[in-house]
Every structure is written in structure tokens, then in C-alpha cells.
């Protein structure tokens, strides 16, 4: 049994101009201790699907799923109270903006000890001890004195470490990192990624890394799933994905990596992710796809077999064999 099993997750937002589907039939499964990456451009529903799992979406969101289970417990079927016993304890999440993700009114010590008290019921002394340990574990220098500082007194990198310490405080089985390095300096980015990978190894927790940086995926993840406009378009082991991307979108993403550039001009993917009003009828990628024809524009493709990376494309086989190139 996998640690996390999501089947056919759909999230719709009620907007002034009708329902907007941000996540459209996404599947995701993560095994114990596995490092799974979700990649895609902005607006591809990466964060929203994970926020739906955590129950953190605003009330305007409608979440439906065939299955949304963690360790065999279907999170959609349990009460909010029971769900809170899992959220923050067994499933933890860190976010993109460390500076605004910590409460400015409380010391970081208070904020980390709060999680320890509520989920583990530790007494004051144990909480203090454990908080110091955690700060030490995530590489915060002088942990004891840092407990009394406020978030605004520390750098973004330090705040992200605090967020990570808070997330792993109750030894979660699954950690979701939502673009944890996007807001940080490049030098700090590598440190934070190393830290996350190290913690994953030490604690054997599953890690879902949401990113739009293919470079990060290549360095860290084991399996990767590519999302586009709320749909999962491809899923493969990292090595295979980089060697033989199946979906034209994945190919285009990889080609846009500076490391892979062959000419002086960096290739780009023309156009943008479709929004609420310009959603194509057929394949969602068709307006930007170099292979798209009338079939693509009229009929939405279904996922292929695992052999072809579960790619949502009518022409995966033909592209692979080189018939279409």
C-alpha cells in the first residue's frame, strides 16, 4: 500500500464568472520514503492539488476525488477534527514564501513548540529540548537563543529552516514542499534542497517536491510527474523522463533548460497555460503543441500506459518512433 494515494482529484473554484477547474482528474501516489516531484508552469494546479490534500483551500473550492487516502485512511471521509490529528503531524507542508509564512506576532520558538504541544503533548521542558534539537537538525546556528527571535529578525533562508523544523517537528510520514526554494537566493536554494533530501533520508519520510525548476528535479527527485493546466500529462522515473520524455510538453520543458540549449537562442514554449476563458476543447496543450492537428483540437486525449509515461497525448507512440518529428 502506498503512503499517499490520490485518484481522480478535481478541484473547482466558484468565481464570479462561474466554476473554474484548477485541478482536473489528477492521480498521485507516493510510497514511503519516496521523493516525488511535481513540475509544471505557474497555473498548472500543482499547489492547489496539494493544498486540497491538506484541506487548506478557501471555502470557494469544491474538492472531489475517487480516493484521497493517506495510509489507507480516506481523508475526505473523516471529520475535520480527526483530519487535524493527521494534518501537521503525519502530513506536513512547507511553503514558497518563508518570510510571510511565519506569524510576525510570535517568536519562532513559540510557533514550533505549539506544534509539539498540540500533537505530541510534550511538557514545557521537553518541548524546549525538542525545539533546540530540531533547530540544530535543520542547521540553525545557536539554536537556543534563536528560539526567542521573531521571524522578521531573521533572513528568508533561516525562516525557511524554521518552517522545515516546524514541519518535521512531529516526525511526519509525508512532507509536502511547495516550491520551497523559489523565494530564496540561489546559494541558499541548494542548501535548503540538500537539507530536505537529508531529512528525507534520516527520517524515511515521503517527500513531495512541487517545483517549476527542472534542474531541481534532476538533482533531487526519484519520480516525477508533469502537470499542465490542472491535468497530469506524464509520469516517469526521473532518469527515464530526462532520457526519453514522452509528452510533447515535457520535451518542450526540457528543451527550455539552459543546460540543454544547443543554439545561442534559448528555446521557449510559445503562449501561456490556458485559463478560465480560453480552455481548449480537445487536448489542453494543443494550442502550443508543434504536433497538434484536428484530432488534438477536438478530442481530449486519455493517459497512455506506464510504458509511455502515462502521457496524455494522442501521438505518443508516433512521436516515440519518430514518425512525427
Amino acid at each position, binding site marked *: 500500500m502506498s503512503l499517499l494515494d490520490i485518484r481522480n482529484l478535481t478541484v473547482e473554484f466558484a468565481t464570479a464568472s462561474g466554476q473554474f477547474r484548477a485541478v482536473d482528474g489528477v492521480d498521485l501516489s507516493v510510497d514511503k520514503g519516496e521523493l516525488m516531484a511535481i513540475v509544471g508552469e505557474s497555473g498548472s494546479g500543482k499547489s492547489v492539488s496539494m493544498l486540497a490534500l*491538506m*484541506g*487548506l483551500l478557501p471555502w470557494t473550492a469544491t474538492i472531489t476525488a475517487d480516493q484521497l487516502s493517506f495510509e489507507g485512511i480516506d481523508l475526505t471521509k473523516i471529520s475535520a477534527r480527526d483530519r*487535524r*490529528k*493527521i*494534518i*501537521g*503531524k503525519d502530513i*506536513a*507542508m512547507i*511553503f514558497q*514564501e518563508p518570510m*510571510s*509564512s*511565519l*506569524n*510576525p*506576532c*510570535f517568536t519562532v520558538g513559540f510557533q514550533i513548540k*505549539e*506544534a509539539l504541544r*498540540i*500533537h505530541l503533548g510534550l511538557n514545557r521542558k521537553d518541548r524546549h529540548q525538542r525545539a533546540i534539537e530540531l533547530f540544530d537538525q535543520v542547521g540553525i546556528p545557536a539554536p537556543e537563543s534563536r528560539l526567542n527571535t*521573531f521571524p*522578521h529578525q531573521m533572513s528568508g533562508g533561516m525562516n525557511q529552516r524554521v*518552517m522545515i523544523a*516546524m514541519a518535521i517537528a512531529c516526525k511526519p510520514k509525508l512532507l509536502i514542499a511547495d516550491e520551497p526554494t523559489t523565494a530564496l537566493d540561489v546559494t541558499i536554494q541548494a542548501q535548503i534542497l540538500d537539507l530536505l533530501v537529508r531529512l528525507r533520508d534520516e527520517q524515511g519520510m515521503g517527500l513531495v517536491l512541487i517545483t517549476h525548476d527542472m534542474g531541481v528535479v534532476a538533482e533531487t527527485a526519484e519520480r516525477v510527474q508533469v502537470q499542465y493546466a490542472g491535468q497530469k500529462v506524464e509520469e516517469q522515473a526521473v532518469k527515464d523522463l530526462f532520457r526519453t520524455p514522452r509528452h510533447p510538453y515535457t520535451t518542450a520543458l526540457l528543451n527550455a533548460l539552459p543546460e540543454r540549449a544547443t543554439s545561442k537562442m534559448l528555446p521557449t514554449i510559445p503562449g501561456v497555460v490556458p485559463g478560465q476563458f480560453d480552455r481548449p476543447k480537445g487536448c489542453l496543450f494543443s494550442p502550443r503543441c508543434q504536433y497538434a492537428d484536428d484530432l488534438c483540437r477536438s478530442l481530449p486525449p486519455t493517459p497512455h500506459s506506464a510504458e509511455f509515461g502515462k502521457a496524455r497525448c494522442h501521438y505518443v507512440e508516433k512521436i516515440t518512433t519518430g514518425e512525427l518529428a
Partner: protein
Amino acid sequence: MFGYFLTRLGMFIPTFLGVTLISFMFIRVLPGDPIIVMAGERGMSEERYQEMVEKLGFDKPVLEQYWDYLVGVLHGDLGESFVTKKPVWDEFFALFPATLELSICAMIFAVALGLPAGVIAAVNRGKFFDRALMSSALIGYSMPIFWWALLLIIVFSGNLGWTPVSGRIDLLYYFPSVTGFMLIDSLLSGQEGAFGSAVRHLILPTIVLGTIPLAVIARQTRSAMLEVLGEDYIRTARAKGLAPARINGLHALRNALIPVITVIGLSVGTLLAGAILTETIFSWPGIGKWMVDSIFRRDYPVVQGGLLMIAVIVMLVNLLVDVLYGVINPKIRRR
């Protein structure tokens, strides 16, 4: 922190001077002559009138009069009432506890109801409670105080007979004033029923005076909470699996308090202004009634002194609010 405090205190000086100038000029611009008012219906002779003009210093140029007044104020002398011949200072402190007692009760009433109401409205945004609360807050805010007071008196004192119409305590009870606060004094007196009587006398004035601040605080709390509830750190708190009560009541409210205490501080000014009307309606022997009476008597020193004291109190409260910002949100704290 101390330096910050001193800087803020230094900013008092121009405000203070401005208030003395305005209160001094304002009362003199009003038509009417205090000496004639003092003389009453019998009038007075021309010689006696001139004598009084000289005695009160009205023969000097206005600027010189102002200067004399200012020098007096800086020496802690607010002058003597034209009518009672008692120092303004003494009169103020004899009456101020009554106003303070009423204002504190009104503020407690407004905060104790307004803060939770605002939080609940924000959490249940768009639902029935939110709409009902915000419409009643708007009504409360737009209702004229005197009309609201009369309405309450008619219903609760007149028809139902639950509360007294005016005053601070029943005439049955008499005890010396120790603190000036009727609630405390009545308890200290040990007389049976005295405290209950004092409380009953306080209820309607408290509600009347507290209504506008209540409406303002409820609305401000709601909008501040709505803004804070959309912040990233609230998402973090929810991701930690905290209970909604803790998220709303601690993580969100503490951040929302900054704008709320700002309006609470500003409400103190409104409250003292409202006290003038409320005290007049309920015959509450506080500085509000004292000031209104003095304006009609053209009792210059009392009006000037009263205005000045009220201004100083409002300034002090707002200084306290500034200090509280730093206590509530350390990000605002200065080094």
C-alpha cells in the same frame, strides 16, 4: 523604547499649545458676555461692570490675556471658575471620576462585545450572522445618541421600570466619596443594595455611550480579521493542524488587533465628546455636564481648562496605543 516614548512625548508640545490657543479663542468668539451672565437678570451698574472687566483682565489686549493664561497653565494653574470661584483644577478632579467611570464601563462594553462579534462575523463571512451584525452595526453607528438614549429610557425605565432614569445612585444611600468611583465607593460603604443601585444607574448610560464605539470596533475587527485570515501565516497555522478557535482567536486576532486598538484609541475622543451628551441626558454629574453648563454661563476658565484636560487625556491614550503597537506586534517595535 524609552527614547521612542520621549520623542512621542515631545510631539505633544505643539498639539498642547494648539489646544490652548483654540480653546482660548473659541470661547471668546462666542457671542455673549460672561460678566453680564454673572450679573443675572438684575443687571449691574456701569462702574461695577468696569471693575469686573479690570478684575478679569478683559481690558488687556487678547494676546496678552492669552499669554497670561498660558503662563498660568504651565505653572499648573488653570484659573478659577467665574461662577463658583473655585479653582478649575479642583472642580475637574471632583467631577472627572464620574465621567471616567462611565467611559471605562462604556469602553469595556464596546470592546467586550465588539471584538468577539467582529471575529465571529469575519470567520462566518457572508453568512447570516455576518450580515445581521454588520447591518446592526451600521444602524448603531448612524443613530443619534440622544434619540437612542430617549428610546432606551422610554422602554427600560418608563415601560418596564427596570432601570432608573437619571443620576448615579438612589437618594436612599449616602456615603462619603473615597475614590470618586460610585461602583467602588458603594462597595466600600458596606450599605446593603448600594452597589446594586449604582450598577443599575450605570447600565443605560453605558449602553448609550458605548454604542458608537461598539459599532466601530465590531466593523474594524471584522475587516482587519478578514485581511489577516488571508495571510500566509494563517495557512501555516492551519497546516499545523491547529483548532479553528486557536487560529482565529490567537494567531489571527493578535495580528488584527493593530487597527482595532487604533480605533479604540480614537474612540476615546468620541467617547468623551459623547459623554457630554450622555451625561446631560442622564443628569450624570461628570465633566460633560459641567462643560455644557459652563459654556452656557460663558465661564471662560472652566471651558478652557476642561477642553485642555480632555485633549491631554486623548493624547495620552493615543500615546498608550502607540506603545501597545510594539507590544502586540514586535515587528513595529523600534530599536
